[in-house]
């Protein structure tokens, strides 16, 4: 992405301001008669935002570093690899997008992986009618589950963690039932599903051409960013996460907003189900275990607080890609070791450890930003 574009995105962001700020009261110039703030004052006032943007970009910078490193070190860190990596992580990205909104309301959605699996099954079942039927069917399926989540959380006032854990069980059961206990089901090979799925962008211009999932991912996040910044819904989401009780007393439609947030998450998971069906060339009822954790990790790395009220959609995109790249690197490194020797060969178990340690480092770095601001105990 061009730097300008980036800056734009970043500035459009709802820059997270760590809650610690709260205990750093400004001297209110109440006594002073109203005067417009001077330029310096304005700059001072903007400082937290500036810092926020820097923090944003610190994740970005991390990403650039990692990517640069890979380019230099690995021969086959080429467009093909990058595309396939992005294509793969697009699934997590879209789920994390929904999760980000959920988390900004102070909630969580454990059912995303299950929904994606269910949707992939639905897509496969609907594939004989053609790609677009399958697409719609899958998204509807996901949305329906999201609606159930939204209802249980919003109206039955059941904690999101439990509500979505329960629907996770339910969804898995339903998915298996739909294809009576076969793990997976084929796409109808005669339908246009596979052909459309295989479609790529800019054939001839780019080589290799860009898989559709990548623009899809970018567009989805652009929409997400604008929704958060420029729609009433986005503001409600943040307000509810920031102080549910106040939101209610301010007359915000808390239940309805929660409802829509989970519905959105469900819908996106449904969409991911289609990507899943494309990648598996069929539906799988058992797929998507632990995806919610991947999504949460990406969201956190992106700088969204799980306590709600503060969040960054763009950060989530960066977080997703960063984590994805790390995983990719571990595999590339193994190959490097075989080809050149002198590298670091890690089996899959070590790779888990490294992933965890990396996450730890990122989180610790983030906490340092907060520490700087935290003076008071309260």
């Amino acid at each position, binding site marked *: 992405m061009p730097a300008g574009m980036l800056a734009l995105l970043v500035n459009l962001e709802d820059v997270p301001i760590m809650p610690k700020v709260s205990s750093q009261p400004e001297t*209110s110039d*109440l006594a002073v008669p109203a005067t417009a703030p001077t330029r310096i004052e304005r700059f001072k006032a903007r400082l937290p935002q500036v810092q926020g943007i820097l923090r944003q970009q610190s994740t970005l910078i991390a990403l650039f570093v990692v990517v640069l490193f890979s380019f230099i070190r690995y021969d086959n860190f080429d467009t093909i690899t990058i595309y396939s990596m992005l294509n793969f992580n697009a699934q997590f990205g879209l789920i994390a997008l929904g999760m980000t909104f959920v988390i900004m309301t102070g909630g969580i959605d454990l059912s995303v992986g299950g929904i994606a699996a269910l949707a992939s099954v639905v897509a496969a079942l609907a594939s004989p009618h053609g790609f677009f039927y399958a697409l719609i069917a899958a998204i509807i399926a996901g949305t329906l589950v999201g609606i159930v989540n939204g209802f249980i959380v919003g109206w039955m006032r059941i904690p999101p963690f439990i509500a979505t854990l329960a629907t996770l069980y339910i969804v898995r059961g339903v998915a298996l039932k739909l294809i009576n206990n076969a793990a997976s089901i084929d796409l109808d090979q005669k339908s246009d599903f596979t052909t459309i799925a295989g479609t790529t962008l800019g054939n001839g211009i780019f080589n290799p051409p860009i898989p559709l999932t990548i623009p899809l991912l970018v567009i989805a996040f652009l929409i997400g960013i604008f929704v958060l910044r420029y729609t009433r819904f986005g503001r409600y989401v943040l307000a509810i996460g920031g102080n549910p009780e106040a939101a209610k007393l301010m007359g915000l439609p808390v239940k309805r907003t929660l409802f829509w947030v989970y519905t959105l998450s469900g819908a996106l998971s449904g969409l991911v189900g289609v990507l899943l069906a494309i990648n598996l060339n069929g539906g799988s009822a058992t797929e998507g275990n632990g995806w919610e954790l991947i999504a949460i990790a990406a969201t956190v790395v992106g700088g969204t607080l799980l306590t709600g*009220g503060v969040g960054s959609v763009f950060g989530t995109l960066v977080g997703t890609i960063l984590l994805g790249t790390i995983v990719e690197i571990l595999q590339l490194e193994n190959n490097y070791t075989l080809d050149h020797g002198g590298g670091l060969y890690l089996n899959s178990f070590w790779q888990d450890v490294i992933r965890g340690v990396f996450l730890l480092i990122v989180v610790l770095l983030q906490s340092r930003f907060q520490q700087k601001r935290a003076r008071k105990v309260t």
Partner: protein
Amino acid sequence: MQENDILLQMEHITKRFSGSVALSDASIHVARGEVHALIGENGAGKSTLIKVLTGVYRYDEGTIFFDGQTRAFQSPQQAQREGISTIYQEINLVPFRSVTENIFLGREIFRWGLLNWRKMHIEARALLERLHISLDVTKPLNTYNIATQQMVAIARAISFKSKLVIMDEPTSSLNEDEVATLFGVIRQLKEEGVATIFVSHRLDELYAICDGITILRDGSTVDERPINTITRLELVAKMLGKDLGSVQKSGLTSFDASRHRASEEVLLDVTGLRAGRKLQNASLSVHVGEIVGLAGLLGSGRSEVARAIFGADSLDAGTVAVNGKEVHFRRPEDGILASIGFCSEDRKIDGIIPDLSVRENLTLAALPTLTRYGIVDRKQQEEIVDHFIQRLGIKTAGPEQKIRELSGGNQQKVLLARWLCLNPRLLLLDEPTRGIDVGAKSEIQKLVEELAEGGMGVLLISSELEEIIEGSDQVVVLRDGITVAKLPREGLTQDAILTAMAHGEAHSDAGENV
């Protein structure tokens, strides 16, 4: 008032909670453009009545008649839509969001279907100008102090084009100037024909701004009439349910500093305190048995002084000495161990543990003294709790009621008791009587006095000057985190303090400047 211009009419409202009956046969009538006072002691049911009206609570019996038809609002949202905008007792805004957002949440301004931030910022500024406040509206609300937050809440409330504005103790955290501004605004509203329900425990305010008054006692309306037809004494008598004779001259406090004598022994000595942006150079000392008043404008850093002494904030510079020897508290535990108590200013954020019972909240700080081998001595605990419920007349269904279910003022009493039951040598009180009714107030003031007689040192932060003047043996004045004056009680006057607060030098020749 004639029937035609009646705006709100609540009749025979009853509201029961699991623990208690909050309202029984309460009623109130408000005419269009009227400023109506709602008063009653802590726990009388004022806030509940308001929440019943705005649909936060369902009521059990009664009828509500608003703007020409009987209504039962299902949610605050609906009430707002129908033209009732409310400032609830505790500040209820979203801390992490910008001032602008907090003002416009729920009725944002759009351009081409997208939020129009520029316009909203401009209008937000304009609204606050109206309240004589200029601040950066793009910053998160919680970067400003309570008073400012309160003003933002007010700005939000008045910016709705509503028929009725309800203000539940809006002034409890404001000082004179801001109250004056607020009254200005209320009068404007009045001219626009907007009615106001105004809740406050400060009688002068009621007489200054209100037309009619409704007096609640134990959940029922005991009197309702034009305010100019009732004297303060009657009012207080009605409110407390006592006969005129037994009610002493209200408004002024029941402090009588001459009663107790500060000894020469220095208990606390603070010099050159610096912490963060807010404390620049604060110094003060408290003698055994002395009440030291700490005065200053909002944001002058009074709370910070207290917090710093207590060990809640880390010091950048300066020394704190207790009984002559220097101490370095790093956390509140240290302060408590040195038998210092700190009753914080912000009840909701720094005070109550909402889900714990009155008993547990009251004895939280005292637990170490109530436990042997980590096991709590329940009997002793309950004795203490009963004692203080009695002593401060805390209105509660019982020691096991959750504190979140208590009225604001009663919560405040529990928090006071939390520290009193430690009987500390030094007590730091940050706005101790905020939101407390006149009856309870004098109770508490008497108590503080007694404790001082018993040799306890008290640092009293208050925005009410009478309290400071009548209560303290010495007044320390802060300005922008700097001690600008130390005024002895002899020849202590309102304007001595006021000038010191505003300009930083006390023109009373008695006062020694620093």
